[in-house]
């Protein structure tokens, strides 16, 4: 309760400012001195906490933090400069006592903070770093999460996260990744790598079976926040990024409706659409429209358009399945995958008939070990009145998933079918 009061007052101020300060300080001290930058951030927050708990939150808490961080940065740079080995476009300015303070100060201006954060995003999502390490590093440095918090959000232990972070740092050293170069948004592949990492981060929050809803929500929120950061900057404002944010908005709008009171997953058909977040749907529509400007057309465009179709339908029956089928066909051409094929087949089933859907599903290869595949076939058998085959398929699906929520859902379908056939 008390935590909530403070969070209402200052949001995730500590965590978000930790990320901002880490980005600025890392730019000043060099990416190799990430640890040093994190120490300064930690000291700064500590000072804020010890003072504010007695005195209350100052009028401009961010400015208060930056003043402390700046002072600590200047001290550190002065000491560093005795055995200077840090080379960057600004190292000259940092070496002279005349320009040291003004340079440090200028890096704490709003637009420079944003710039540092963007450089940090591109550095953390460097293609040379494995994805798992990219996400861990992003959450640690840009979102201010501790190792324990990251471990919790991925249902793993601290040791695993430490290893992932270690691998990231190893790559930073080997590849000499730095924050000094201009934002490489126009470099082929770099923007895609960043967007893909944000997409994975969002999916982790949205699709994971983590028991704590707050943690899942936070991962989604962070992915959206970083995506918005890309869009707000003219250099990184790519239509692809806008499409990705649109997709995230549409998905997030259903967050509350997706979970039943017992914590089980509610399917699109069963969801109470009146509690879908209209503001998020509107934002999704807005970014989707924006993303259509320009000649770029990505998988995020299609996925956002599909999510948008669902968001626009006021009931499940009113869903425009023909459009969704067309979109999945386009997506399949761009990104061939059995899962996309599966989704397309389901759309075919609703757009035309369960029989067509079933036939489309049976043509798919390489999904025999995937529970969703069997569950989808079971659904169409069930609609066609073939209880025996439907039950067989649902049982197969139960044996293939490790998620308890999914198992619960499948078992309830099985029960309903058996009850129906007894009558």
């Amino acid at each position, binding site marked *: 309760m008390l935590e909530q009061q*403070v969070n209402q007052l200052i949001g995730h101020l500590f*965590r978000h400012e930790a990320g901002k300060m880490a980005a600025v300080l890392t730019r000043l001290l060099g990416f190799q001195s990430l640890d040093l930058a994190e120490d300064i951030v930690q000291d700064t927050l500590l000072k804020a906490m010890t003072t504010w708990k007695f005195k209350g939150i100052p009028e401009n808490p961010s400015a208060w933090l930056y003043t402390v961080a700046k002072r600590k940065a200047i001290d550190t740079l002065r000491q560093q400069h005795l055995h200077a080995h840090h080379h960057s476009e600004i190292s000259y300015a940092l070496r002279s006592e005349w320009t040291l303070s003004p340079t440090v100060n200028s890096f704490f201006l709003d637009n420079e903070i944003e710039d540092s954060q963007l450089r940090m995003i591109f550095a953390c999502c460097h293609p040379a770093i494995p994805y798992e390490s990219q996400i861990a590093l992003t959450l640690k440095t840009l979102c201010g999460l501790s190792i324990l918090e990251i471990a919790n959000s991925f249902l793993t232990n601290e040791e695993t996260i430490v290893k992932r972070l270690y691998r990231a740092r190893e790559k930073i050293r080997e590849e000499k990744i730095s924050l000094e170069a201009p934002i490489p948004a126009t470099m082929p592949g770099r923007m895609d790598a960043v967007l893909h990492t944000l997409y994975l981060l969002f999916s982790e929050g949205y699709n994971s079976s983590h028991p704590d809803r707050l943690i899942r929500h936070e991962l989604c929120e962070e992915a959206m926040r970083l995506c918005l950061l890309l869009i707000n900057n003219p250099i990184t404002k790519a239509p692809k990024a806008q499409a990705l944010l649109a997709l995230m908005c549409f998905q997030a709008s259903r967050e509350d409706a997706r979970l039943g009171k017992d914590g089980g997953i509610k399917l699109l058909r069963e969801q109470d659409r009146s509690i879908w977040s209209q503001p998020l749907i509107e934002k999704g529509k807005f970014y989707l429209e924006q993303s259509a400007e320009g000649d770029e057309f990505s998988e995020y465009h299609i996925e956002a358009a599909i999510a948008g179709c669902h968001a626009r339908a006021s009931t499940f029956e009113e869903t425009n399945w023909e459009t969704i089928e067309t979109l999945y066909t386009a997506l399949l051409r761009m990104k061939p995958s059995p899962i996309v094929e599966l989704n397309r087949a389901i759309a075919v089933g609703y757009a035309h008939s369960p029989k067509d859907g079933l036939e489309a599903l049976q043509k798919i290869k390489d999904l025999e070990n995937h529970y969703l595949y069997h569950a989808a076939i079971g659904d169409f058998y069930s609609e066609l009145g073939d209880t025996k085959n439907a039950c067989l398929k649902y049982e197969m699906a139960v044996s293939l998933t490790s998620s308890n929520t999914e198992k619960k859902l499948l078992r309830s379908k099985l029960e309903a079918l058996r009850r129906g056939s007894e009558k």
Partner: protein
Amino acid sequence: MEKYMLIFFGGDPSHLSPEAQQAHMGKWFAWVEKLRNENRYVGGEALLPGGKTIKGQKKAVTDGPFTESKEVVAGYFVVNAKNIEEAVQIGKDCPDYELGGIVEVREVMKFDM
């Protein structure tokens, strides 16, 4: 009503994550808010670690006190209370015990006898 000083020792939150630090700070806000509403809060200050110590006839100045972190004075409150028991009761609400903090409760001497 008498005045009592609550002196806070230790309670080092440096191992907490930013989010957890903010949450802990929230507990302090709630506590101070409650004391203010009950007209008990008179004032308080936070102290930075480090500092200097002056000692002896020769007024020798040394760095520190660099004692163990749990013995470092982190700050103080002055509160209104009927008696020492009530002041202790107030001190029990301090959120720092979960971080190994210690609170000393002392009566402030009155001079206007």
